């Protein structure tokens, strides 16, 4: 069962009462995960897992130790505290120690829906059964994953702080492949409210992409104008907001470091059409009410109209730099203050380009320029003279994110949608993007 706020407080109080160390921060968590996986138009695995855990970090004369357990009985909690204190006595002094926070005030976030936490396995089975029927009717082979997750837990410090977070998330991702294996389509959406997850439309979109992607042609690799659907943007950029670390930038080992030991703070690093921010109270993408170190989260801009507005200062690095710690990010939202463009208008305005549904197996090749490699997957189309002409086979790219979002390379921005990265990670609010130049380096025959 998920922990209530009262139960969480009772457990963190109990743990803190066992602490003999000078300072401590504790957390307790509970998690409920329910999932169903299908493939080849049949059910594969399905299950439910409940889990919970407690974690403590203590400091004794500035020396730090951490321990965790997933057993919340009194003996196990005491063993966990003893273990952390034993480690702390052995450890050297933690030179980055700062006293834990005293009481903070958090503005609540609405991120939990009971119907998502207690999802009906029979209703889910029927919804997936209906999807498989739709695949059979359309002569495609369906595979997908439906999962609902609920999390609740509290955190507290020896200096008097306490906070409680609860959240839910439900998602369906679906891949449809044609019977001859020549085409594949994919679609993924998520929400914290199961009532807002439209499983039928997700399946319909995956099937449509598979059917329309048949008879794909090859295209020579090279530099092309691209239109990236929100899923493709998420696959590339869902972690971008969390990468503006001040310490690595000031240490000279980040894409936001500048020559002469400086940083790029205040520079126009991206096109003015691009703003990136975090907002814990966004109604479609609620984030945690607490940011790093337990400080209350606030709405903050990382990039505003292309200008690097904030680097993220941890409590320690902020104190060292004489700055305030950054109250975020707790989620990732990309928006534009320029006029919003519809995907159809992006296509109409393209003389020669490529429409991309999704990217896959994205890995860093050079952190200095945030260069990535990866491949297109599950839906690529060639555009010429303002119209989609035909589907394309997949391509590998090698592309710097800094150059991709640079002034002049972002031509049009669409409405932001809630979308998750298809290799994992949290959901973000991201738009369709039309980019002037994007670098493909080889072809892939993979479907």
């Amino acid at each position: 069962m998920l922990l209530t706020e009262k139960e969480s407080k009772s457990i963190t109080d109990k743990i803190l009462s066992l602490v003999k160390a000078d300072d401590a921060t504790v957390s307790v968590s509970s998690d409920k995960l329910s999932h169903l996986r299908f493939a080849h138009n049949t059910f594969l695995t399905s299950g439910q897992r409940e889990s919970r855990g407690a974690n403590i970090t203590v400091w004794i004369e500035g020396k730090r130790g951490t321990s965790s357990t997933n057993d919340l009985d009194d003996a196990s909690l005491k063993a966990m505290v003893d273990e952390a204190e034993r480690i702390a006595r052995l450890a050297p002094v933690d030179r980055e120690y700062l006293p834990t926070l005293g009481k903070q005030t958090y503005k609540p976030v609405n991120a939990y829906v009971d119907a998502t936490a207690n999802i009906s396995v029979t209703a889910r089975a029927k919804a997936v059964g209906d999807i498989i029927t739709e695949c059979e009717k359309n002569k495609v082979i369906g595979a997908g994953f439906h999962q609902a997750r609920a999390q609740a837990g509290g955190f507290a410090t020896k200096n008097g702080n306490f906070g409680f977070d609860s959240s839910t998330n439900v998602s369906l991702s679906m891949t449809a492949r044609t019977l001859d294996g020549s085409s594949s389509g994919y679609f993924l959406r998520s929400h914290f409210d199961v009532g807002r997850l439209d499983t039928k439309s997700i399946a319909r979109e995956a099937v449509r992409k598979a059917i329309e992607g048949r008879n794909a042609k090859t295209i020579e690799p090279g530099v092309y104008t691209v239109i990236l659907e929100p899923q493709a943007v998420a696959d590339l950029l869902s972690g971008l907001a969390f990468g503006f670390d001040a310490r690595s930038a000031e240490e000279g080992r980040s894409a936001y470091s500048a020559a002469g030991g400086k940083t790029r703070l205040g520079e126009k690093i991206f096109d003015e059409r691009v703003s990136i921010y975090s907002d814990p109270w966004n109604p479609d993408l609620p984030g945690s009410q607490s940011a790093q170190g337990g400080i209350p989260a606030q709405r903050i801009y990382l990039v505003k109209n292309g200008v690097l507005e904030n680097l993220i200062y941890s409590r320690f690095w902020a104190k060292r730099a004489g700055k305030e710690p950054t109250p975020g990010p707790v989620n990732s939202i990309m928006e534009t203050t320029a006029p919003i463009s519809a995907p159809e208008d992006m296509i109409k305005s393209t003389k020669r380009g490529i429409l991309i549904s999704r990217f896959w197996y994205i890995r860093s090749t050079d952190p200095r320029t945030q260069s990535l490699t990866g491949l297109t997957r599950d839906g690529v189309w060639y555009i010429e003279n303002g119209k989609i002409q035909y589907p394309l086979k997949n391509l590998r790219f090698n592309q710097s994110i800094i150059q991709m979002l640079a002034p002049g390379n972002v031509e049009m921005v669409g409405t932001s949608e809630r979308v998750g990265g298809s290799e994992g990670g949290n959901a973000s609010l991201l738009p369709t993007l039309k980019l002037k130049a994007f670098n493909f380096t080889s072809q892939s025959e993979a479907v």
Partner: protein
Amino acid sequence: MTFSRRDFIKTAGLTLGALTTLPSWVYDAQAATGALIDVNKNNLADIALSTAKKLGATYADIRINRYRLESVSTRERQVQNVSSGQNFGFGVRVLIKGTWGFAASPIVTAQEVERVTREAAAIARANSVYQRRKIELAPAPKVVASWKSSFQKDPFDVPVDDKIQFLLKLNEAALAVKGVSFVNSSMAWVNEQKFLATSDGSRIEQYLIRGNPTFTVTATDRATGDFQTRSSLVEAQSAGYEYIETTDWLAEAKRAGEEAVMKLKAKTVEPGKYDLVLHPSHLFLTIHESVGHPTELDRALLWEANYAGTSFLTPDKTGKLQFGSKIVNFVADRTQPAGLATVAYDDEGVEAQKWHIVKDGVFVDWQTTRDLAPLIGKNKSYGCLHADSWGSVPFPRMPNVSLEPAKGNVSTDDLIAGVDKGIMIFGRGSYSIDQQRYNFQFGGQTFWEIKNGKIEGMLRDVAYQSRTTDFWGACDALGGQSTYLIPGTFNDGKGEPSQSNAVSHGCPSARFRQINVLNTAAKTQG
């Protein structure tokens, strides 16, 4: 009603007839975790399996597992964190009307085992209404056994202070190199204590230790804003703390520091075709991605179509497809010493095995589990089922997949001597491959230009792109046993929900002709 561990041992002996005594490590494990292990797993298994049978399961299993974890991380002259944790729980899997159901809980009591078994059965029944193709299992013989992985010194017995001092010394060795700015180092240890009971009558206890020591050195040029890193070339292994004590980490840290600084000034690579000589510290990951994953039968049968992807290999290509040159032989091996995927039994009680996947360059066999084997007409699993936790559904995971060395005494220098224009690559860098495992791109840690049979100097910004069968077809020479290493990776992700698997890939140094190399720092837009 719960029993003490020693009561369990007595009961187990009476019930099973085979476990009259257990090895001393079982008692050691109890001592290590104190009173926390005070459950009668055998009794709980009886409850789960009899409940599942009553509810109509044609097969069921229960895994009751404890995971101990310890990690120490440092940077430069300070400790960033020392953490220790344990995680205990059970998962029940049932097969009802040809449909799987699974449920798991951290509350390890008789009452909870019965409740969770009912929950697993309810999930299976709900889904079975819409099931299209019933799951069938290849048979597996009943096994009653216990096993411990090979290690000499249990890392959980080594004082934390020793580990801290080791890492700080390692950092000093790197920082002593002029031009080194930062060093991050860490070691993580995992102990899995796994109990499996199946409705076929198997009862298996396994105790595994794995270690993952690693570090990264960074050299920065503050004037230009440039920076380069060099990570450890020594990878994770199934080993005890002797892995720390018998490896010359200080020399490796010093060398890493020197090479990180050297990278700042190294010549950037000219794109084009090169012969490659790949060191095992690099080649293991290329094997993992281009050989390990496409020979997973679940991928070929589209079970991973929605996430990790499918495979360019299909069952009709078994025994026919020329995967690589005739010198290329890959074995799947869950018995390989030091291998991270080495076990005695998999997570459904099938004994660990060794078999050829590619023989004399031809693709000949698959990685299978009990529910996969019947789908290609086999009545025996190769034992590849694995779950990363008591709370995860076990599913097909990769065994150690290793490249056999040349039979003769071929050194890495011999391979280099046969290259006019080439690059030698060490270490794991960036790696990316498509969802059917055709097209891949790999980087590394260090790159060395080969000219006229000799190493000339360091290169940087190197990655190579190829197509799996073209690449292995271009393999024209292998190093001998003296070049053979068994590097591994701790965290191979696959499945939904995504799970992590630890796996190794033994290999010698190897040479590949005329592979396409690109420059990863090249300007990407005109």
